[in-house]
């Protein structure tokens, strides 16, 4: 049991999974000698060698396309795309092939690969280094879309993604890479994909979030408890697709009031699907419109204004109070 950051926890998962299964390989730009620009792949090259840890040429479509071939032939590739803002270069490989090979081959060939990408705003980065476009992948049948919120679940979900028989897109919040530490068990640990977690029990209101925004959502919940004396229930999605709507609906039926928080653009974002599922599964329990606290439908601004773009704790609290007030 050690207190680790998200980066260290992910690194631990990679070391343990590569140790555990010789078919796991890591490939991407700067993942070897440099250990990854965020050090998530630190020491993998030294420990597992250049055959299993590939510093690749600068070509995202090939990183994913070659991973698909590797996966079909029995390896378990973990492809790192240096920033999610560049993963669209691999969109065609993901949609046209990774997501379809099992279906196209009628079960003969699976594509057990993981595409890891740092995502999200909040670290004063350059343009294209702050996006949160998980919807592109969540709307693509055949892919799974996973976004952890802290060291312990990051480690457990990455291990589960690596062991999953199907392609998983795995987003890692840059803003929480080193923001805090958590106890992470030394023994390998996994969490099931497709399951959300109730991370705070409550009754009057349900706050749903994921990834880097979960922290702010939890802070908002504390504020509401202290200042308003309500006990909000907080749900961490963990997996965006397949979406665990049962856990969401159960909470919505209980509280009747729901606010969804994410940093992705509002329109056609994850919150919309959550609202649609809750309308389908909990409509008659809803006492007030489900509300969205999200990033705007604008390009993520350069960093001087990124905090204005991101949902703030104040914003979450304010909208939660609206939801509670009618």
């Amino acid at each position, binding site marked *: 049991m050690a207190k680790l950051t998200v980066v260290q926890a992910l690194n631990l998962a990679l070391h343990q999974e590569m140790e555990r299964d010789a078919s796991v390989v890591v490939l991407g730009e700067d993942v070897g000698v440099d250990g990854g620009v965020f050090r998530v792949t630190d020491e993998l090259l030294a420990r597992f060698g250049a055959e299993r840890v590939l510093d690749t040429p600068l070509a995202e*479509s*090939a990183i994913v*396309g*070659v991973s698909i071939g590797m996966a079909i*032939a029995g390896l378990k590739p973990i492809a790192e795309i240096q920033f999610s803002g560049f993963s669209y270069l691999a969109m065609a490989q993901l949609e*046209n092939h990774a997501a379809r090979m099992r279906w196209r*081959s*009628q079960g003969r*060939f699976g594509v057990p690969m993981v595409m890891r990408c740092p995502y999200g705003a909040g670290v004063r980065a350059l343009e294209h280094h702050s996006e949160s476009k998980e919807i592109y992948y969540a709307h693509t049948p055949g892919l799974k879309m996973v976004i952890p919120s802290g060291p312990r679940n990051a480690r457990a979900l990455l291990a589960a993604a690596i062991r999953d028989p199907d392609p998983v897109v795995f987003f890692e919040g840059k803003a929480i890479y080193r923001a805090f530490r958590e106890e992470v068990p030394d023994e390998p640990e996994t969490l099931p994909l497709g399951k959300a977690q109730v991370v705070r029990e409550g009754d009057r209101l349900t706050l749903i979030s994921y990834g880097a925004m979960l922290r702010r959502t939890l802070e908002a919940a504390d504020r509401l408890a202290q200042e308003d004396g309500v006990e909000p229930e907080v749900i961490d999605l963990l997996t965006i697709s397949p979406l665990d709507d*049962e856990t969401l609906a159960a909470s919505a039926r209980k509280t009747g009031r729901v606010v969804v928080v994410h940093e992705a653009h509002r329109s056609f974002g994850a919150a919309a699907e959550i609202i649609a599922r809750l309308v389908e599964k909990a409509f008659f329990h809803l006492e007030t419109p489900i509300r969205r606290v999200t990033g705007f439908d604008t390009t993520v601004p350069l960093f001087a204004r990124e905090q204005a773009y991101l949902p703030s704790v104040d914003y979450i609290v304010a909208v939660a109070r609206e939801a509670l007030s009618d």
Partner: protein
Amino acid sequence: MPRTDIELGYRLQFLSVLTEHGELDRELEPAIADDTLRRMHRTMLLARRFDERALNLQRQGRLGTLIPAKGQEASQIGAMAPLNPDDWFVPSFRETPAAIWRGTPLSALLLYNAGYNEGGKPPQGWNNLPPSVPVGSQIPHAVGLAYAARQQGGKQVALVFFGDGATSEGDFHEALNFAAVFATPTLFLCQNNHWAISIPREKQTRSKTLAEKAFAYGMPGIQVDGNDVLAVYAAVSEATERARNGDGPTLVECITYRLSMHTTADDPTRYRKEQEVEEWSKRDPLPRFQRYLIERGLLSEQAIDEMEKEVAHEIEAAWEETQRKMHDHTDPLTLFEHIYREMPPYLREQRDALRRRLEPPRG
């Protein structure tokens, strides 16, 4: 020092063994076992007749859009014959002859063309990928497959087919560069059939050949008469040997011609001259190979007539079987299968909802 020449040391060759006029280069004639030669010929003939029969089934509305391979049989069979079943076959969408060589039942091909997912399942015992429709997108897969084979201690190579048009796609570039950098045992087989739908080879790129594009990656490239099955066999054997010996990938450009339409949805008269097609018909790979086999005493006119009959029956039998399968595969609920290895809850819900909808006789 000022303007110094940089020695690149490129050497690009064109390989031909059996010319269209039947001249044979004994020195280059590859050593191929007689029965292999016979199988190569029979598969080429079968593929040609299958192509013709499928086309008329399509015309009757029994099959969907087809992608004819007529004229490219030598490039495909010549490339497949040197490989083993466990080598990786990575087709584009026009590789029906190659797929037949690689153990794909005709009925599976027809089933696929009739619009049934089930037809796409690769035959057991063969490392065949299913058809890949997005142009050039399958090329990187062959790099990963080859890498994985080597990584797991195997001796397999991966051979990927693509066309002249595919060389313009970014995936072609990225994949060849990867293969060269990691020296993967990959064979890049470009069937330059002179057309990408309506775009002629000269408008696709300004390079003199497609084979020379290999040099941009520090990779060997060779141009071959793609209507000469012996030349293709020789070039691919050579490249395969290099790959198995750990000497990395090769780009092979087969000069061939699409004698038929791009697909059954295409009207070639809008963009190319009949005369060009006639010119190329004279270079048809099938009669050329037949003459060679006859001269070698491996084939005779009446053996061919025999074979024609067999092949015709084989195709009809396959069509019968396909129709039976089409009856067995009417269940629409299978469209939920193979999306994930385990069907997630929301998909099960969607499937069950569809089942319920289908139960009452439709209004």
